[in-house]
Structure formats: structure tokens, C-alpha cells
């Protein structure tokens, strides 16, 4: 008596979950990637050129406002990348779709680079504005902590051979880490009230930056979101191929 007769054949997943199948996912990403790449490139080029060449200087900050077109989008994406990893980790833990675990793995390096860009542009901005490269402002500090979480997460992936074990452990780390990241945010706020700018994108018109800065900023944010998506899709594909290569090689080895 064989296994398949006893257990009911699982229903073919349809809709969204069908992309949990690596092959299907590869097909999908192959189809949307070119469009995504062009679009993200377009947004970035338009947004950054608009921001850099065709916006006036701020009356207080002078030409340094131009840094906002890199700083704010990268800061947003740094946080959102972690959030995406959290969701992907949850999906892996609950439904055990491999693509989801690999997507989390693929997103981490992109997230780190975003964090680095945010930190660097912030530091460069801080020098003329606050007179120092670095201040232990809560926002900056929690970003540094986020950076550490990214490093730990990637180091854990790198340290473990078995891909499923690595996926499980990093997922647990991501969950626990998220809780502690939120806690840290509160702790840091309590520890030091800061210098940093408030939210500039809130709908509250009072607080908002002027429209001249606002529209190119939106385009840049769109560009960063799109390039993040493109990179994560592409990298997930790479991870899937690596896993497939591994599996095939293992089979070959076993046969010989």
C-alpha cells in the first residue's frame, strides 16, 4: 500500500498561493521583471534629476534639502524591507512555502543597503545641519539597531548549511527581533528626546514640506519601492535556482 492512496491528495493551491510553487514563481517573475526594471529606472532617473537639478534651495537648509530625495525613500524602504521579511517569515512558519523563506533571505541584503544609504545620507546631512556627523537621536539610534538586526539575520543565514533549518531559525529570529525592535524604539525614545525631523509625509498640511520638494520626493519614493521590488524578485529567483541546482546535484551524487 503506498502513501498516496491513504492520504488525500492535497488540493492544488490556486490564486495567490499558487505562486508559492517555485516554478510558477519563476515564470511570474520572469514576466513582470522587465517592466518593473524599466519602471523603477524611469522613476529613479526622473525623480532624482528633478530633485537634483530642478528644485530650489530651502531658505534654511540651503542646497542640502536635495539629500531628502535619497534619505527619505531609503529610510522608508529600510523599514519596509524588514516588515516584508517579517511577513515572509510568518508565511514560512505557518504555511511552509519555500519561496516565502527565500524571499525573506533575498530581501535582507537589499534592506541593509537601504539602511546604509539612509544612515550615510543622514550623517552627511547632519554635518551641516546639526554640526555633527552623528548624534544619538532616537530615530538615528533605532536605525542603527535595525542595522544590527539585519547583520545578525544575514549572519545566521550564512552560518547554517541546511536550508530548511536556516529558514526556520532565521524566521524565529525575525519574529523575536521585530518585537525587540519595537521595544527598543520605545526605550530609545525614553532615553533621549531627539533633534530629528518629524514626519514630513503626514497628510496634515501644516507639517508638510512644500510642494516643490514634495512631488519629486514622491517620484523618488516610487522609484525606491520599485527597485526594491525588482531586486527582491530577481534575488528570490536566484535563490530558487541555487536551491534547485543543489537539489539536482545532490540527486546526481546520490545516483553515482
Amino acid at each position, binding site marked *: 500500500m503506498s502513501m498516496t492512496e491513504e492520504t488525500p491528495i492535497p488540493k492544488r493551491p490556486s490564486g495567490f498561493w499558487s505562486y508559492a510553487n517555485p516554478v510558477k514563481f519563476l515564470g511570474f517573475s520572469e514576466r513582470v521583471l522587465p517592466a518593473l526594471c524599466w519602471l523603477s529606472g524611469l522613476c529613479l532617473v526622473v525623480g532624482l534629476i528633478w530633485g537634483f537639478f530642478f528644485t530650489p534651495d530651502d531658505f534654511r537648509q540651503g542646497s542640502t534639502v536635495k539629500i531628502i530625495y535619497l534619505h527619505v525613500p531609503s529610510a522608508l524602504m529600510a523599514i519596509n524591507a524588514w516588515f516584508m521579511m517579517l511577513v515572509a517569515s510568518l508565511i514560512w512558519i505557518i504555511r511552509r512555502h519555500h519561496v516565502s523563506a527565500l524571499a525573506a533571505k533575498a530581501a535582507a541584503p537589499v534592506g541593509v543597503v537601504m539602511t546604509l544609504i539612509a544612515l550615510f545620507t543622514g550623517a552627511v546631512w547632519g554635518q551641516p545641519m546639526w554640526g555633527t556627523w552623528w548624534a544619538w537621536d532616537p530615530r538615528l539610534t533605532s536605525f542603527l*539597531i535595525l542595522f*544590527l*538586526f539585519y*547583520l*545578525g539575520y544575514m*549572519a*545566521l543565514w550564512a*552560518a*547554517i548549511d541546511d536550508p530548511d*533549518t536556516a529558514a*526556520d*531559525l532565521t524566521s*524565529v*529570529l525575525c*519574529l*523575536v*527581533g521585530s518585537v*525587540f*525592535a519595537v*521595544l*527598543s524604539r*520605545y*526605550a*530609545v525614545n*525614553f*532615553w533621549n528626546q531627539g533633534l530629528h525631523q518629524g514626519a514630513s509625509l503626514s497628510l496634515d498640511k501644516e507639517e508638510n514640506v512644500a510642494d516643490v520638494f514634495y512631488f519629486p520626493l514622491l517620484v523618488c519614493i516610487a522609484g525606491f519601492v520599485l527597485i526594491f521590488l525588482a531586486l527582491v524578485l530577481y534575488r528570490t529567483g536566484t535563490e530558487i535556482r541555487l536551491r534547485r541546482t543543489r537539489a539536482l546535484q545532490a540527486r546526481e551524487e546520490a545516483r553515482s
Partner: protein
Amino acid sequence: MKALLRRDLILAIRAGGGFGLGLAFFLIVTVLVPFGVGPQSELLSRIAPGILWLGALLACLLSLDRLLALDWEDGTLDLLATSPLPLEAALSIKALAHWITTGLPLVLAAPVFGVLLSLPQPGYFWLVISLVLGTPALSVIGTFGAALTVGVKRGGLLMSLLVLPLYVPTLIFGAEVARRGAEGMQTTTPLLMLAGITLGVIAIMPFASAVALRVNLR
């Protein structure tokens, strides 16, 4: 459960003075700080609460390394996992044993080291209180880190990397209590936060640790 606690304590004593070594590390960090930053006592007394907390944290961290590693290497963890003791309980006990051998001596010795760094008078009481409340959280969070990295070669440093960001909230509130205490300010809010973190962590972390350890034993 009692057996595991007893065994861990005996081992800590026999295997080269488990009680003393965390302490010794704490001592040495405290002693090295003046060599590093210079001997001005006004400067030292300002940084004393923070450095003492940091030293305690690092001493904890360093001794985490072998919390599970030895039991992993000689196969004890495999056998414990197949024993009637639930893994969550075993890990809680191990965290407790770690606290007794590391955290507790640190708490008791901290006032003495405070003298070395010319901690201001009112600071002693609050330093001890904050360490009593905070160090259990350090042990429990550390156990989680150890469970995550137990199968990994060179796990020691990787574990530090994973655990230290998790220590941030505890450190901030703990050092804040000690610092405010030393400067004679209100300590209620950070004290409550510290206690909250410790209780929450004790209640929840062992489950996460057990999940991680089960994955690693697989």
C-alpha cells in the same frame, strides 16, 4: 527539574569555578576602563553606572557561550530532548542556573566595583535594584541566543551578534535606573519598564528558545 538545576550548579562549580569567572570578567572590565579613559574621578563617576551595567552585560554574554554548547557537544541535549522533561522547562531551568551562577554574583559584587569607579553615594542602592531586576532578563534572552546558535561552529561570536541588539531595551532601562538613581532623580518609570520587560521575557522567551532548539536538534 530539580535534578537539572542541581547538576548545572555542580558543574558550574567543578568545571573551573563557574561562579567566580563571570565575576572576574566583570572585575577586569571595570578595572580596564580607567586604563582606557584615564583616571579622572569626576569623569569616572559620571560614566560609572553605565559602565557597570555594560560590564555586567558583557560578563553575562561571555558566559552564555557554553550554556548549551557543552551539552550539545557530548550529546546530552539529544538525550534530554527524548526525556520526559519538556524542553521549555529544561531551558527555563538552564536560564535559572545561568542566572544563579552569573547574574547573582554580579549583583552582589556590583557595589564593590562601584567604589572602583567612584559611583556617587545614592547610586549604590539603585544599581543593585536595577541589576536584580534586569539580569534575569539577560539570562533568559541569552538562552534564546544560545538555542539559536547551538549547532553552529564558532557559534560564540555569532551569538553575541544576535543577542546584543536584543539586550538593548534591558540595558537602556537598567542603566537609566542606575544613572537617575545616582543623580538623585525619579526612577519609577524606567524601573517599571525594566520589571515589565523582565517579566514578559521570562514568560514568553522559553517557548521561542525551545522552538529554536528543536529545530537545531533535528
